């Protein structure tokens, strides 16, 4: 069978497995898998920038957090229906991206990293400092989940809701990445000047990729606000941005499956390590160092290496 057929079979197997999970998992672990799915989407959205367009952003939590705060503020402060807040949050995240992109895209490399970082910290400082609106450090509780005629309050129904949204978003991402637009992004990653010479408006492609990445991060952020029924400034903090970065790299940048696996692993490890020691941050730091030293191209890169070794005699 061809590789493509195997991929399709694999996808269906994973999907079937994900559908069956509520039957076999205890609610605690089902909630953990829900979180994994949300962060898988967050990591994939960052990979659109990092892996496909070649722009390493250290401020991706900004769009995640803006969407989450939009949801929380609309529901708690303005009394808007929870389901209606979702599309507004998406637009807010994309708009933030559209606003920040022209600033960040003035630069490349280290400067791009610093600027995205600094911009995200501005958003964080607003959420942290504007106490009368956001409660500052205390965050906003009582973010109710949407109700489309059936309640999402149970772990199982919310899991299916997240699975559906993340599934749809992933399909969209797969379509984007495989489209001529996605191929152009990869071309830009390899050589901006060559794509420019071929007549592509490089800046416009990067801009659209930036806004798309922000929008998908917004979907993840909105889901996470529902998930925790709470929003706090840590959603916007640089640690959140950096975790997304390590999820992408750990799994393997430039693929969609890699970051999803990376996200699942980091979320699982965080839960596992936190249950044993208070020093999750230390362990996370060590993971960064080890991944950089031993798997700089991620788990997907390791698999490729092993495969190549088998092919050669």
């Amino acid at each position: 069978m061809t590789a493509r057929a195997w991929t399709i079979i694999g996808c269906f197997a994973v999907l079937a497995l994900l559908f069956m999970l509520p039957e076999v998992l205890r609610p605690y672990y089902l909630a953990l898998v829900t979180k994994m799915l949300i962060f898988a989407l967050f990591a994939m959205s960052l990979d659109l920038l990092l892996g496909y367009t070649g722009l390493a952003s250290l401020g991706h939590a900004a769009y995640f957090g803006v969407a989450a705060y939009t949801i929380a503020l609309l529901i708690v402060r303005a009394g808007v229906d929870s389901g209606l807040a979702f599309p507004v949050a998406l637009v807010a995240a994309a708009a933030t991206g559209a606003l920040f992109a022209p600033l960040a895209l003035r630069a490349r490399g280290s400067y791009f990293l610093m600027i995205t970082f600094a911009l995200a910290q501005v958003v964080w400082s607003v959420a942290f400092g504007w106490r009368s609106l956001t409660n500052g450090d205390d965050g906003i509780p009582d973010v109710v989940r949407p109700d489309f005629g059936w309640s999402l309050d149970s772990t199982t129904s919310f899991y299916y809701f997240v699975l559906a949204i993340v599934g749809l978003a992933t399909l969209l991402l797969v379509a984007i990445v495989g489209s001529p637009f996605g191929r152009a992004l990869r071309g830009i990653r390899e050589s901006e000047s060559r794509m420019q010479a071929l007549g592509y408006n490089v800046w416009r492609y990067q801009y659209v990729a930036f806004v798309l990445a922000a929008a998908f991060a917004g979907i993840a952020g909105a889901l996470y606000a529902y998930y925790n029924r709470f929003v706090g400034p840590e959603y916007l903090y640089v640690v959140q941005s950096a975790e997304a970065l390590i999820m992408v790299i750990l799994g393997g940048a430039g693929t969609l499956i890699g970051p999803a696996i990376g996200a699942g692993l980091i979320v699982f490890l965080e839960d596992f390590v936190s249950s044993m020691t208070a020093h999750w941050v230390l362990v996370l730091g060590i993971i960064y160092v080890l991944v950089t030293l031993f798997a700089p191209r991620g788990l997907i890169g390791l698999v490729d290496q092993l495969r190549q070794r088998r092919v050669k005699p």
Partner: protein
Amino acid sequence: MTWVIHILNGIAFGMLLFLLAAGLSLIYGLMKILNLTHGSFYLVGGYIGLTVMQRTGSFVLALVVAVAAVALVGAAIERFFLRRFHLDELPQTLLTFGFLFIFADLSLWIWGGNPLMLNMPEIFQHSMPMGYYAYPVYRLFLIAIGLVVAGGLWWFQEHTRIGTMLRAGVDDAEIARALGINVSLLFTLIFAVGAGLAALAGVLAGPVLSLYPGADFEVLIFAFVVVIVGGLGSLRGALAGALLIGILDDFGKAFFPEFALFTVFVPMAVILVIRPTGLFGRR
């Protein structure tokens, strides 16, 4: 008169920022490493200074021990980790981020989560009369130290043999190596100097700003803004940017406390639009 006080406060804070940004900028200029551990060097330096001060009561000893210890740690990180990924941006970023987390958690473990203040050395515990106000002598001392370090770094760069090698390395590390300059030793040395300067800033900041978990991120952001404004790799840019940002920050905190960071970030955004490589940065 209040304006003079605000400007002096801003310059004093700006000098601390200069110590941080100078190291960040030197390291980037020579090695093209964006050192995210720089804020941790500041915080850990401050904490070490605090402990030495508590044990011995000597501020000078606190400065010396903190700077030496952190410079050694910096040299080790460069030699054993960063060196393997020369000019490879993403792994370097990840490594320095990893160390940021490691230092953050270790210092939380050792020094706890409460804000700590370094005791002000006795000779600085009074104020100087200035019109209707009294101005704390320690801040004037900060300004003086900043100027001395800035002058020293300039002299080091322009008039010493190592400074000449450094300038050659910044211009073209490969050619410098071919000319017989020991560039790899230079890398370790400059990384240690940068880390030491950050630790110096940490100890000096101890008596005025407190040390607490999260301060590492906060000063890192300020140092980033300074080098974005001034331009990476330029000492002049680090000084100009640090003074500008220090003063703007002081006015922001005094007049718009809820949005203090905005008075810093809006000028940064404006400069980015006009000159993406900063005031003194090179293309």
